[in-house]
């Protein structure tokens, strides 16, 4: 049964990827990429990688698609036919693929419990992490404690990407839009209670992107609090089940991005300001690094949480809680910053 699901999902993936290669409309390619991510997330679930599936579903289908679409809105939606024939590319790809497949001949069979990867340090993580670190979710133990340096590095990489984005695109505001939105501000507050006739008149004045999508606005209003609540659950329940800072940050960010898509970016920017986001992004990395430094001041190694409390397991718990919080805040802030920078860019501005 397991292999049947596996094979079906793999063939769906192949079909999707062939469609991505052939299609020339970039919008369709981006949508197909979202499907590709969702299918691979399902495949990760069948292969027991629940945390990874979680992240892939939130990042691959959510944030990636949004970012690609916002970049597409600033450029051209159709791919040109390349002037030269791609035979050399095809040859390179076929040869590389053949070499890689030849390489897999030496690999152990798929799902083999005796393959070398399972006989190395993983045995220790599975056997000792409940006593050494504590959280039932081994992935969290490894991520936050055993390989804490790695995760700090990843957090800093994300932070750097956020800085690069702000440097490349900036938070420049769409001036003409701002003026139009600020004038009928008093009207806007009473907009929700107004009847639809008034609403139509209002739309002519300011053109909210979601103003004529009644269903979107109402469903959005119902869903956004739930999304945010779910993100908090994922953040604080990451020790016990699938989840953690990375997933929670992305899910929280997607709630805010949904708000921005339905109620306009300017409105979202007044709720979550770019300045606050920059502070949050710094704060996230600072919390992570700070926990490491506090451990050093208390006489342990960098990111050695045992010294944080009288009982080593409590110390580990506190340390993991804090650094997951740092990761969550950092990822959330950077993801929203990325969306803002793209959404705020005027088409064709130099």
């Amino acid at each position: 049964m397991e292999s049947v699901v596996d094979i079906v999902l793999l063939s769906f993936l192949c079909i999707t990827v062939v469609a991505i290669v052939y299609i020339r409309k970039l919008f369709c390619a981006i949508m197909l990429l979202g499907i590709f991510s969702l299918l691979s997330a399902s495949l990760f679930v069948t292969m027991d990688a629940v945390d990874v599936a979680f992240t892939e579903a939130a990042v691959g289908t959510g944030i990636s698609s949004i970012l690609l679409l916002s970049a597409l809105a600033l450029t051209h939606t159709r791919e040109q036919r390349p002037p030269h024939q791609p035979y050399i590319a095809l040859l390179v790809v076929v040869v590389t693929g053949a070499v890689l497949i030849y390489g897999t001949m030496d690999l152990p069979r798929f799902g083999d419990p005796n393959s070398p990867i399972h006989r190395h340090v993983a045995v220790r993580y599975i056997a000792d992490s409940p006593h050494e670190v504590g959280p039932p979710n081994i992935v969290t133990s490894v991520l936050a404690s055993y390989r804490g340096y790695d995760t700090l590095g990843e957090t800093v990489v994300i932070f750097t990407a956020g800085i690069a984005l702000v440097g490349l695109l900036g938070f420049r505001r769409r001036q003409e839009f701002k003026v139009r939105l600020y004038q009928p501000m008093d009207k806007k507050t009473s907009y929700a209670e107004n009847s639809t006739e008034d609403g139509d008149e209002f739309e002519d004045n300011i053109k909210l992107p979601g103003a004529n999508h009644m269903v979107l606005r109402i469903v959005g209003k119902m869903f956004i609090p739930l999304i945010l609540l779910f993100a908090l659950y994922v953040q604080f329940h990451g020790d016990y089940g699938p989840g953690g800072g990375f997933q929670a940050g992305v899910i929280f960010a997607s709630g805010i991005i949904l708000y921005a898509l339905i109620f306009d970016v300017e409105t979202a920017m007044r709720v979550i300001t770019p300045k606050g986001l920059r502070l949050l992004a710094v704060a996230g990395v600072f919390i992570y690094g700070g926990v490491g430094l506090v451990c050093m001041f208390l006489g342990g190694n960098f990111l050695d949480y045992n010294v944080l409390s009288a009982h080593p397991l409590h110390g580990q718990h506190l340390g993991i809680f804090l650094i997951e919080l740092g990761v969550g805040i950092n990822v959330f802030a950077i993801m929203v910053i990325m969306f803002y920078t793209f959404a705020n860019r005027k088409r064709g501005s130099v």
Partner: protein
Amino acid sequence: MSWVGHYNYWVAIFLMMSGFYVVISRGNLIKKLIGLNVFSTSVFLLYISMGKIFGGTAPIINEHSQKFQLFSNPIPHVLILTAIVVGVATTAVGLALTVRINERYGTIEEDEIRAKDDSL
């Protein structure tokens, strides 16, 4: 029939190579980034395939999973979990560069950009 056990790896390699093909054969910069995303997701698939054990379960230890006693390898999960988020960060930087290129050149097709460069 030892080769049957490798189909997961082979499909992952096929997907990887399709992404690679898009990256090197297409001139459109956004399409290239889509190909790069396909490529990286396939690499994730390869890694996670290696961590899978038949009959194993997700590496979460609690009273319900005690009866399994066989967990899939958590290390690839940790590596890939962070790689996914870093992947989206790199995609975002690539897209930002694409947007800036479009603002300067008015196109995101590689050969048109090159033609404009040569004509300078």
